[in-house]
């Protein structure tokens, strides 16, 4: 099993969710984050003082899937998030050793989906 972590632009959350639903991936967890990457950020001014903002608002999605679903998931995310502009984001794939569903105490593949 894998844990897919994706950082995307906030405004893309809805379209990513839709692509995932189309790919029949219904489970995910979302947090918001600040990201620093190739996208340079922008300058804010407050009371005429200029501040460089290089921590930009990003959405972080976490999806645990069984190995066979990894590709499908990644594709769906890319489809939903890609706009060909700097700042589109990144996907990280990490190994997961075990998944447990709290309600039923089921383990492994059966608990992921």
């Amino acid at each position: 099993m894998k844990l897919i972590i994706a950082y995307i632009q906030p405004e893309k959350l809805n379209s990513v969710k839709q692509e995932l639903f189309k790919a029949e991936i219904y489970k995910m967890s979302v947090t918001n984050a600040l990201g620093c990457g190739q996208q340079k950020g922008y300058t804010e001014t407050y009371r005429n003082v200029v501040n460089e903002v290089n921590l930009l608002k990003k959405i972080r999605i976490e999806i645990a899937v069984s190995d066979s679903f990894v590709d499908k998931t990644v594709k769906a995310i890319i489809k939903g998030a890609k706009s060909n502009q700097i700042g589109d984001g990144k996907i990280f794939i990490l190994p997961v050793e075990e998944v447990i569903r709290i309600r039923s105490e089921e383990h492994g593949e059966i608990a992921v989906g």
Partner: protein
Amino acid sequence: MNKILFSLSLFLFTLGAGTSVFAEDAPVTSVTATAEVVAPAPATAPTPPPEVTLSTDKVIAETGDDGTVVSQTEKNSAFSGSLTAVWLLITGSLVFFMQAGFAMVETGLTRAKNANNILMKNLMDFCVGSVIFFLVGWGFMYGKMGLEAGKFIGFSDFMLSSSNDTMSWFFQVVFAATSATIVSGAMAERTKFVSYLVYTLVISGLIYPISGHWIWGGGWLSQMGFHDFAGSTVVHSVGGWAALVGAIMLGPRIGKYVKDEKGKIRVRAIQGHNMPLAALGVFILWFGWYGFNCGSTLNGMDLSMTHVAVTTTLAASMGALLAMTATWLISKKPDVSMTLNGALAGLVAITAPCAVVSPTAALAIGAIAGVLVVLSVEFVEKVLRIDDPVGAVSVHAVNGAWGTLAVGIFGDLAKLSNHGRLEQIGIQALGIVSVFAWVVITSFILFFIIKKVIGLRVTEKEELRGLDIGEHGSEAYNGFQIFSNM
């Protein structure tokens, strides 16, 4: 963009500086209480003030501040004049405070990422509006045409030059600002800031004063016996119809109307970000409305003010109550933001008839307003598919019209202009329609020109990220974690 703004400021400023700013040349109102100064100019009255003792006191022999004997008649006049000044200053200040109410309601009912922008609009429409109303607006609204009130427009007293009616001006400028500020809510979350400034200059300087002149400035509608005590039509409908035109010409916010898989258009709720602020705003507006309606007696000696307070209270309460009931029935839950709208709808509706209907009629007027606002929001949003984030059109335009009509339906004819009931209803309807036509046409032209010359709407990217960063370069809630994707 800077240039536009800069020339705007310069324009206002040079206009102002064109006349001498030194006090010697432009004599200030005398600070002593004399009857001449205090007698409220009847021409500026929303409705011709009822004959009160006051007006019989105009004959004075001397000014009295040089130590000569002052007659009792003159003193009476000074008392009633001073009471009127106190009354209008305080109620006028309450009306000013309504700006805070509008700012809070509109901010609360829109998203966090646009909060700075909407605050700035609400502040600047008062600032721009009061200056332009001083320079020209007041002259168009309450000025004379030659020796008497023009039928369609006034044209004198610019910059309070010939008259020195500071008391009336103060009370009127806060009304003008109310009218302008209504529009910002309907156009929220997508309008260019600089375009908004231009719009507000024109509505406060031209559109509002002219239709205002027809009704309160002695123009043709007032001559026909059209009655709008505190401005359901003059103030609220004018703002509301301009809001309608603005919202149409802007188009809906991104994400408001989305196509689902089957290509059917679905309406999505874009929730406001701060209900306590919105509720506070409504309480402030309601509070200020006592100034708005009661102060419109324009006379501290006119005891109808207490009657007005009662009808205002009851209509607002019924508006909120019935709007809550309506949304409870429709969506199975009593919705907070619609209930808030309901209170405002009741207030708008009672604004025209507050002095000429009974408390019981006020209950009915408010109740109908409460239902009307809910149905109107449904209609505007779901049928017409016009995106009005705060419900400004339904609250101010629709209920402004309803309240104006209610004068004809429920009003005490004896207090109106001796027309029969149907005739009075007809006159009220005529007023509603002509103001509608005037505002829709002029504001369409205005927004059309702005759209062509400067553009009306921010870029998609700016809209998605929020106007606070795009237009003002900073955020409203620094440090808070906010899901801005919504």
